């Protein structure tokens, strides 16, 4: 019972169920082989291909914890990829490691600036997060297209390709990258007080203000983190296709990232967040994607299934469904006009007085 109550129980159960269904349907699904001292196979591919979504979802988790949302992550991915690959394309030796490194750092810095811009609009100007990040979502992709001159910039660079396809001790480099990102973010959030203060601001901004929490900096930092992580994700994506494709990079990734975060048990209403939950959520999304491919669904048709998942998840979180669940259990009177919500509204009204 304790186990069932753990907040990661249901996300993990969903992931495991998904894997089990796959293995039963096709035993090859979980097969891992060893080639040239490296591991290959479907599970490894899932770990590797999860990287961009993992990074983006990680940032999105922090933003959602502050009661916000970042729609611009896909556009930021396009920009960082475009910036870095244009630089690499311009240098004499695209295989030079220092040159590639500088290009990558510049790409990430640009992403940082874009994240800071979002944070400024939200935390300083007080614009609704959806709207504030919509601006960059719209303009960012255009800017990326300008940087690449509207073309798909292809680059043959060994160090760059390594980012997405290289191997380090048995496993893909990209896998290690997201593990490191997850660990770093988890350490920053949980070893300092940032995580707790972020949750406090997300759950009850007014109580936090009265307790002296400086919410502006906290909210701002979440958008910066989201920007940086999206920037890195953009580089991985570009490295994987060896090209900067400003139209396709990060297309719809904001939606998948939100889905992954919600699947991981973090509420869209902000507050308590779970990084481990997001990791599980991302692996679930990627596995579901692979599963659909395995069952012969065209990638383009996959959104139908994701739509179904989104609807189920939001319904499970919906207060009304919770009430139904409660009234079924308690068999009490049907609470006609949402007494709880009404009572809460009441107390809020009382607060205004």
């Amino acid at each position, binding site marked *: 019972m304790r186990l069932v109550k753990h907040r990661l129980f249901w996300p993990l159960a969903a992931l495991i169920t998904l894997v089990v269904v796959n293995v039963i349907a096709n035993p090859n699904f979980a097969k891992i082989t060893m080639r040239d001292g490296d591991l290959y196979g479907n599970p490894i591919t899932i770990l590797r291909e999860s990287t961009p979504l993992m990074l983006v979802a990680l940032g999105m988790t922090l933003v959602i914890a502050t009661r916000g949302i970042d729609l611009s992550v896909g556009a930021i991915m396009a920009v960082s990829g475009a910036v870095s690959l244009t630089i690499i394309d311009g240098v004499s030796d695209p295989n030079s490691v220092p040159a590639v490194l500088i290009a990558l750092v510049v790409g990430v810095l640009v992403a940082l600036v874009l994240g800071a811009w979002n944070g400024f609009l939200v935390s300083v100007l007080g614009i609704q997060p959806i709207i504030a990040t919509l601006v960059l979502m719209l303009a960012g992709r255009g800017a990326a297209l300008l940087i690449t001159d509207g073309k798909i910039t292809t680059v043959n660079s060994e160090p760059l390709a390594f980012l997405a396809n290289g191997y380090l001790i048995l496993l893909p480099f990209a896998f290690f990258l997201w593990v490191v990102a997850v660990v770093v973010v988890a350490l920053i959030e949980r070893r300092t007080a940032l995580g707790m203060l972020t949750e406090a601001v997300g759950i009850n901004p007014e109580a936090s203000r009265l307790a002296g929490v400086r919410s502006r900096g906290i909210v701002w930092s979440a958008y910066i983190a989201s920007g940086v992580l999206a920037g890195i994700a953009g580089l991985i994506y570009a490295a994987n296709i060896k090209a900067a494709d400003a139209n396709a990079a990060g297309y719809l990734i904001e939606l998948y990232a939100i889905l992954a975060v919600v699947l991981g048990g973090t509420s869209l209403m902000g507050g308590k967040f779970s990084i481990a939950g997001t990791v599980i959520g991302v692996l679930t999304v990627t596995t579901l994607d692979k599963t659909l491919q395995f069952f012969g669904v065209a990638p383009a048709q996959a*959104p139908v299934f994701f739509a179904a998942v989104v609807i189920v998840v939001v319904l499970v979180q919906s207060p009304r469904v919770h009430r139904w669940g409660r009234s079924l259990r308690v068999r009490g009177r049907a609470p006609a006009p949402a007494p709880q919500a009404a009572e809460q509204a009441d107390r809020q009204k009382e607060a205004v007085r």
Partner: protein
Amino acid sequence: MTAVETTPARTGGAKAALVTFSTRHASVLPTFAAIAILIVLLVGAQFQFGNFVSPGNMSALLYDNAHLLILAVGMTFVIVTAGIDLSVGSVMAFTGILGASLLTNGVPVWIAIPAMLVGGALIGLLIGVLVQQFDVQPFIASLAGLFLARGLAFVVSLSSIRIEDPVMDWLRTRFSVGGWYITPTGIIALLTVVVGAVIMHRTRFGRTVYAVGGSEQSARLMGLKVARTKVMVYVISGLCGGLAGLVLTAYSSAGYPRNGIGTELDVIAAVVIGGTLLAGGRGYVLGSLVGVLVFGTINTIISFMGADQSWTHIIVGALLLLFIVVQRAIVARSERGS
């Protein structure tokens, strides 16, 4: 009993008239700003290129953007209730490919076209029910709609379907007067604007849309039918998505499942530039017409300049930001005022 407040207009004078205007119509100002921007764009382009404001060019503005205009009308309803509908581009693609597929499979056009409209409206209904009955944020609910419609578009067909149908061909016939022309698709778009404006302005439903956007709680306490209205606006937006699918399919004489990717953002931008407040409660269908024309004009200017089309989104993004910041200031001022 004494009169407690006199009407400023009755004291006479230009200044008083201005005061009256501003107390009555402050919410129209953003739309006027959009009209001003449109005029500046047109005049500037005319000076720059000499032949910009030509009958052909102006007619093309309506012809090329008819689908956007229809979507913008539906989106205006949603945004005025302080909601948002991200699904419109995908719904347009889905209904477009659905119609194309039905027609090529020999389904008569008088069944295919209603099927497109119903398809769009059903997705809108799903979003509306999620928003109203299950308290799902409009953003998330319409996101589910976006996924669903986009996926369904590809379920219908993975590639584009060319159509040859007399009715669809007729929809893009050009009726010309001098250099000017208009197509049935353009007429449909303009009719949508007119019908939308009449519903918004002259029906109780339309006024409830504004009341909900002004304050949902007040609207409920005033005894208005809030729940029905909130569901209906998404149905209307979905219906407009279906209609836009029809118009775009006729325009390109093909259904294409990749149509309208990112169109929802263009539409939202056009609606906001047209003077509709994203926070809800203020906005005009006619303003959205202006917004779409601004969007289309920027597009045309950029292709005249031979510049990269991606500039359109950057400029529209910048305009969007400008309008949002100004709106934020207006809202902040009216909050202080009350």
